[in-house]
């Protein structure tokens, strides 16, 4: 038996799970191989062992929670029906007339439409006319009202330069 094979079986050996033939081969290998024998000792040293000792208070609570009567009653309780979803009326899970729901929806929509129309909240589709100021007699508005101080006419505009 090679060391790589022996290493795979060491845990099963100490767990008492090896077949008699594998047990024999492995123990023979361990007598000849100090490295595998050392690995076996190290693995044994780190074996988890149960160590819990729950306090009496905990055991009493466990007793109460797992009382067969309680468990049996809970297991045989009919399942609580799930709360109907908001679309349940459409699939017929909830007894509501489809017509009534549609009529209610239509009424609601009509109320909204009326309210919006009364409040003038509709977005307009035509541009409103802009008010035009009436011309005042005797005042002529010059074509150019303002020229910045830095303005210098270009050569094209002033060919004398």
């Amino acid at each position, binding site marked *: 038996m090679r060391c790589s094979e022996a*290493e795979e079986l060491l845990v*099963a050996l100490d767990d008492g*799970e*090896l077949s008699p033939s594998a047990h024999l081969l492995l123990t023979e290998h361990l007598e000849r191989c100090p490295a595998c024998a050392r690995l076996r000792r190290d*693995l044994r040293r780190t074996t988890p062992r149960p160590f819990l000792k729950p306090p009496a208070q905990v055991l009493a*609570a466990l007793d109460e929670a797992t009382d067969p009567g309680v*468990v049996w009653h809970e297991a045989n309780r009919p399942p609580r029906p799930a709360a109907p979803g908001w679309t349940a009326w459409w699939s017929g899970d909830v007894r509501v007339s489809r017509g009534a729901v549609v009529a209610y929806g239509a009424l609601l929509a009509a109320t909204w439409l009326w309210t919006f129309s009364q409040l003038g909240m509709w977005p307009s589709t035509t541009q409103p006319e802009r008010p035009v100021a009436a011309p005042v007699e005797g005042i002529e508005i010059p074509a150019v009202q303002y020229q910045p101080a830095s303005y210098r006419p270009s050569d094209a505009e002033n060919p004398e330069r």
Partner: protein
Amino acid sequence: MTLLKLVHGHENLEDDHIKSVAREDRRAAADLVIRKYRDPIFHHASYILKDYQEAIDVTQEVFIKAMRERRFFDEEFKMKAWLYRVTSNLCFNLRRDRKRRSAILETIPKPRKTEAIQLETVFADEQQGEILQAMGRLTENHRKILMLRYYSDLSYAEISDALGIKLGTVMSRLSRAKRNLMEVLDGEGVVRG
């Protein structure tokens, strides 16, 4: 060469007795199941959760689920493996939820539980306490298999049923898990999948 004992499918006489009772009276069989498995299941949950109150809740839930399972008292049904599988799954789900919750609510101080209910207070065996802490650094698969074997004392065949893996895989996974545990304890901190 056969490496492992051929004990797969061995009979558990007590479980068979419970099943025969169930044919006449399911309620009486439920009493027997709870009486037989309550403590081992509670201990198994306690080692995973490290919280007695949560372990009590899980134990109750496992038995309620068992009584709702129609096939539970069937002749071919593996009660013990089923109970441990469901317990392990519920506990590891709860641990994951707990981690997620604590990530979200880490700024909010947790309410203190009564001292007697906390598992840490019973870490009388220092070395075993360290081993349990070290197991927390292993992968979930390795933790599960070590707990089933060494805390709950399941045979390889029972572990194979509980985890739904082959007998040969039980042996190789346990071997790797124990070597990883040893390395973590030695301070090397090598955690392999």
